[in-house]
């Protein structure tokens, strides 16, 4: 098992530009069940044997795609997400970076009404190792296993996962939820799924400064979550009021500092690592010998 995607998830890619076509190929190589690509004006052609459609509606009608990974450039990305959601796709993964926040606010609201799940935007996507990849994560560093990973960051996720894999701790599903101010699914949405996933034995939460999502997660864990959780928060050395690359990393109030987050997690019984190496130690402890 795993969450959200597995080997049977019928997946499509929206936007066959430079990044989209590269990662569509990578996903195919990883074993993702890629059934369709969408690129206006290229309908009727094929990409590495996969049919290409002009619109999401045609793609879904023809292939029953359930998941779409969006690589469409920022000015058109919000519309592309809405297109897939309105065509009936259940899960949209928006890799695109730089989508205006008000666009995302409108998108998220409409997707809620449609009952479509959204991961991202501005995210590396998600992977259920050995089964399927919907995003841009480097497949080779992942290994199947009991650790769920939820992160707001990209390369930091790889760093953490790489150390976990090297230490022999494989992953059930690893998710980069994106660092923008408005994103689709958040820690709690994933935790709810991990709680019901028998393969997942422990979840690592990788957080950062900005907002209060990590506090919400800690709150959720202390009330509703039955498995061990390990936390890691970056940005302790960030000065207040400075952007650190992610729009999500604006310090906007007292609770959005790394210190506040670390404190809140610990108060709620979640061990928090100071370094990536420590994450591995805490995961080993948490799993208590299980791998």
């Amino acid at each position, binding site marked *: 098992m795993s969450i959200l995607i597995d080997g049977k998830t019928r997946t499509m890619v929206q936007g066959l530009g430079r990044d989209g076509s590269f990662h569509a190929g*990578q996903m195919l190589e990883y074993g993702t069940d890629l059934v369709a690509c969408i690129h206006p004006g290229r309908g009727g052609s094929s990409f590495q044997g996969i049919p290409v459609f002009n619109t999401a509606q045609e793609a879904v009608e023809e292939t029953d795609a359930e998941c779409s990974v969006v690589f469409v450039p920022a*000015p058109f990305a919000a519309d592309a997400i809405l297109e897939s959601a309105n065509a009936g796709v259940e899960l949209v993964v928006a890799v695109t970076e*730089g*989508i*205006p*926040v*008000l*666009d*995302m*606010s*409108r998108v*998220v*609201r*409409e997707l809620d009404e449609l009952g479509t799940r959204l991961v991202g935007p501005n995210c590396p996507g998600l992977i259920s190792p050995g089964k399927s990849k919907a995003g*841009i*994560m*480097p497949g*080779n*560093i992942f290994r199947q296993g009991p650790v769920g990973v939820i*992160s*707001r*960051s*990209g*390369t*930091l*996720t*790889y*760093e953490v996962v*790489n150390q976990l894999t090297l230490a022999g701790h494989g992953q059930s599903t690893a998710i980069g939820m994106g*660092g923008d*101010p*408005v994103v689709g699914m958040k820690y709690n949405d994933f935790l709810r799924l991990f709680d019901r996933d028998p393969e997942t034995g422990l979840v690592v939460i*990788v957080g*950062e400064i900005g*907002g*209060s*999502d990590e506090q*919400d997660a800690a709150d959720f864990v202390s009330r509703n979550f039955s498995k061990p959780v390990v936390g890691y928060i*970056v*940005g*302790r*050395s*960030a*000065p207040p*009021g*400075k*952007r*650190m*690359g*992610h*729009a*999500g*990393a604006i310090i906007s*109030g*007292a609770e959005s500092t*790394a210190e506040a987050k670390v404190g809140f997690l610990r108060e709620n019984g979640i061990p928090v690592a*100071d*370094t*990536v*190496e420590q994450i591995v130690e805490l995961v080993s402890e948490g799993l208590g010998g299980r791998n």
Partner: protein
Amino acid sequence: MKLEEFQAKKLFREHGIPAPEGIMVTSAPDARDASEKIGFPVVVKAQVKTGGRGKAGGVRLAGSPDEAQEAAEAILGMDIKGYTVERLLIDPALRISGEYYIGITVDRKRKIPVMMASASGGMDIEKVAAETPERIIFQPIDPHRGLRGFEAKKLAFRLFSKKKRAMDTSFIMVRLWQCFNDLDATLAEINPLALLEDDSIMALDAKIVLDDNALYRHPRMEDMRLPTPSDQKELGAKSHGLSYVQLDGEIGCMVNGAGLAMATMDVIKHLGGTPANFLDIGGSSSPEKVVHAMDLLVSDPNVRAILINVFGGITRCDDVANGLVQALSGIDLDLPMVVRLTGTNEEEGIRILSERGINALKDMTGAAREAIRLAREGGGAR
């Protein structure tokens, strides 16, 4: 992109929000002329993209041309939280009988915009928010439907019971939303929203932050960009695809990915060092990017050692190593440098770097420790 007060007020007025018609000046004699045009008393206000300017002495009342010029001389060049005052707004001084607060931002938790309003406006609104949060009222805004008249009216009648004041305020609220939405702002704030002695309502201060991701839709906003020197360095970095924030430590960092960059800074601090900057070179690290990034690090006189931390994911470590070698061959580097490479093809990458005499490690904590050591030992040379 933060706007300065005089810019935000201009945009407010364009959206039908009453704000004093002041004049922006950059010199004390111009401040004098402007004050004479406006009529006395005037307020001389430092234009800086930070709060707390009032407490720092950046706002002064002037009752005569001489006083206006003196105030301008005193404020221009002043340093307010690291920002040097280069511009002043000369506004008419108005007779105020009450200070209120209204603002709109995007609520990350609700994922929609929200309007905040308080009868306790003025300088200490953040204190109000922290200590007496019940004195701030919230109105979520449906991003498709916008702030409706009746929602604004409901808020406005909680600030004012008199019809004219409440209705004027509710119109300002709706227009503030229109301004926020039309400009793709992430913040639009009026503090104080003033009740004047003549019973009118007016925006005495104005703050707008625009969504950088949406600036492509608002080309004329680019003309409003007034970068400070430190902004300029960050903007220059941005134009090369780099995300850079200067700090005041000793270890210059170059990392791929914002989260990993913060983790790198954290580990430096954790080990007793101080990061000199945040620098995210993004997913793919082309040689040109590395050259520009190196320029940024080297141009910072505080830097005593350089730490490059790259996780090879999609990008292979050997490619990154070759890129680094190519990039460094054109630079006369007089600082110690530690490179940490891990991920896809890491062994090959480390080998390539070692051949060129570059210290390369696999382990982030170890690399940070080494950079701190080198900074303390050899860094004294500069």
